[in-house]
């Protein structure tokens, strides 16, 4: 196929995937909407209860319910929400008293920064460790990597986070124990801002990365051992190719496929894991916002967060599919 033909077919493929994602995302919204209806209580109950010990006014909760539009029939509430989303109006959070878009944009950057940094660290470290381990299965390096990976995978995220805080934050006092920025009277700018953000990012990103690093290390090791036992590797060796070329060009490129699949599959888990890390490190991300939205039955907010996270997962998987074709020309996108 010509290169123009390839890009056309890629575009068609992407368009088809995006179109297919629309009903999927709508389905996710509806599912979450009904799931939340099944949980007892609504936002009016929450807000009324926060009025404290003297809320002896029977009509008050009803009044709130009316003001929040929660007295409308359920299907009508869902329809109104979907209709608004179609015009990119994600509604109003009655708990926070501001537009949902404003709340989410304020927090989205935090989560994306944390998740992306963790992912990059995890993939790079995981792959390198996996490759090292696969060079001599059963050897010393392999054993050390296996033990480290098992530890990082099995230790609860919050515990790892707390240990890092105690050691690097409280004991050594090298790194801040929480937050995303130094609160200064004059906002930091340029290099100072970048350094400040990185300073705050190290501990939370490391905590989240350790878990995923363990997965990727084990995955790389297994696929690499498998790839290196294939006939084409033996052929490459017989041809007298250099070791490095065999490992990277022939072995690793083929071993990458399952790893890339895993990255796509783990996108949702990564967002989930960030809830814990955001809590431990007081990181202002969307995970905590989602948690609060669930506890407070903040319908508009929660639905919009779900919408966004399902969009991210769909998008990551789309990128993964395209990467397949790049890694393995036998896989044709859009074929």
């Amino acid at each position: 196929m010509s290169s123009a033909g390839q890009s056309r077919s890629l575009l068609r493929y992407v368009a088809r995937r995006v179109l297919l994602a629309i009903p999927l995302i709508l389905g996710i919204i509806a599912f979450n909407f009904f799931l939340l209806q099944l949980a007892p209580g609504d936002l009016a109950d929450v807000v009324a209860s926060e009025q404290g010990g003297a809320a002896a006014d029977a009509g008050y909760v009803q009044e709130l319910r009316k003001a929040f539009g929660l007295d409308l029939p359920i299907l009508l509430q869902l329809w109104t929400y979907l209709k608004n989303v179609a015009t990119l109006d994600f509604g109003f959070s009655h708990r926070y008293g501001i537009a949902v878009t404003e709340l989410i944009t304020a927090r989205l950057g935090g989560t994306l920064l944390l998740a992306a940094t963790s992912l990059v660290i995890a993939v790079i470290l995981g792959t390198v460790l996996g490759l090292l381990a696969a060079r001599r299965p059963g050897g010393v390096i392999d054993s050390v990597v296996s033990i480290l990976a098992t530890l990082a995978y099995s230790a609860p995220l919050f515990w790892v986070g707390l240990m890092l805080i105690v050691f690097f934050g409280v004991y050594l006092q090298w790194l801040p124990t929480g937050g995303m920025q130094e609160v200064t009277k004059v906002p930091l700018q340029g290099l100072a801002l970048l350094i400040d953000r990185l300073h705050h990012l190290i501990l939370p990103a490391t905590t989240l990365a350790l878990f995923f690093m363990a997965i990727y290390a084990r995955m790389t090791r297994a696929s690499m051992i498998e790839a290196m036992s294939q006939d084409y590797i033996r052929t490459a060796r017989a041809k007298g190719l250099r070791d490095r070329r065999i490992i990277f060009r022939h072995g690793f490129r083929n071993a990458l496929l399952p790893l890339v699949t895993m990255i796509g599959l783990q996108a949702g888990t990564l967002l989930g894991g960030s809830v814990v890390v955001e809590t431990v490190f007081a990181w202002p991300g969307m995970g905590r916002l989602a948690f609060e939205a669930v506890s407070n039955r903040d319908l508009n907010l929660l639905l919009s967060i779900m919408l966004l996270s399902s969009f991210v997962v769909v998008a990551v998987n789309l990128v993964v599919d395209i990467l397949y074709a790049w890694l393995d020309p036998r896989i044709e996108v859009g074929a």
Partner: protein
Amino acid sequence: MIRMMSVLTLAAVLATSGPTSAEEKETPIRGGTLNSIVHPEPPILSPLLNTATPIVLVATKINDGLVDYALDGSIKPQLAESWDFSKDGLTLTFKLRKGVTWHDGHPFTSADVKFSIEEGLLKYSSAGKRIFQTLSKVETPDEQTVILTLSKPTPVIYRNFNAQALWLLPKHLYEGTDIRSNPWNAKPIGTGPFVFKEYVRGSHIALDRNPNYWDAGKPYLDRVVFKIIPDAAGRAAAFETGAVQFGQQHPITFADAERLKKDGRFVVDTRGYEFSPTWFWLEPNHKNQYLQHTKVRQAIAHAIDRGLLLKTVWGGYGKVADSPIPSALKPFHLGEGLQQYPFDPKRAEQLLDEAGFPRKEGGWRFKLTHDFIPYGDDYRRTGEFVRQSLRRVGIDVTLGSQDLTTWLKSVFTDYNFDLISSWGNAGADPQMGIETRFWSKARMPGTSWVVVSGYQNDELDAAVEDAQTQIEPQKRVEDYNTLQRIVQRDLPLIPLFEIDWFSVYDKRLHGLTNTPNQRADNFANVYFAPE
């Protein structure tokens, strides 16, 4: 006027109050940033719409009230310079300070007060609607005068003129808008010592010194930053690394409090909560076939070693309750002459036998579910303690764990529970925090934090209703004595213990405890002393 104000519970009221602690006699030092913990994250910054503690903590630094309250319970001037309450308790006149401006430069006048009461408090504050229900008229003869006319004397109202209870709105920013969704609720314009600077959601709220504050020379601090730190261990670490210098109402765990106490850099202080006497109770559902028996409820009270519970679960921060009115709520708390239920499992077993529920095969008498209030680990552990105590006397208790919204719905709307544990702030006047726990008329489905037991007693109801408009202080005290006697006899709910809240702060910080209501103090007097 003086006679009238003695209704207010504590000592006689002075027009102004002088320094009440050694701290204030030192020369305060200007400057510095106070980093404080706020937890959980405040959704909005308007105590008119939500009276949750974190909201009050932040908002009251930005906006002053008509008056404030001193440690001895007396009224202190704030935006009102003076006041006159008529002898019959029906006309309350406030004279406002001249030259006060909102943070946007607009003058603060009596029109703002009238607007805040009529369009804000009476429409959107559920507590305000109840407390100010006898208010029949608000008049503003001039820009500095506000006259409130009541249809009946309402003693509880005198405790509700501070910023926390009567939140003042800038009329020029709220008039003609939907007050509930007004964007200024998230970035308040106030008259207080600190000006709202920024709210970075999930991270912090920053306030800067108000250069035009009416109390010249104050506040002392340049900045107050409230940091949102959701994890308890993270909060302790923030203290240790110097990232925060103040946190209130149990900001860290009891174990961490003990550790920081020994550190030497921090003070763990139970002062500043005099207006928040808090107590913890078990509330049985009187529709339950077992719990409707007084002897069963008395047996439960005898079965729990409340001293041990306090020591093991609450780090010793509290005392065993001997009445439904906390001991700090003087002069209403009746210390003696009330029926008591010391820890006595044998007596508990005897009472359960007498009630007609002997141990059956397997050793159990009957089954109960105990739904503890889902506010965190301390409450779960308390539930666990209650479960173990009751199982020891043959009551097979299952612990129910729900999220808060589910708990609220099943308890306060569906009345679907056997036994709950919960707590409350008794307030600065028993009417605010006590009557709704017992007054049968307060029980309304769907209304949180009111009596749900289903208990009804005419004598108790009559005492509560008399206290609502009783102008004679001694008679009002007697009304609440009646309540205490009946409650300790019948145990419609079972008072377990009083909670002592503590704050943690950097020992260089001064001016924090010179208030009976630390969360609602405006921090105008807070400063850092040199090391």
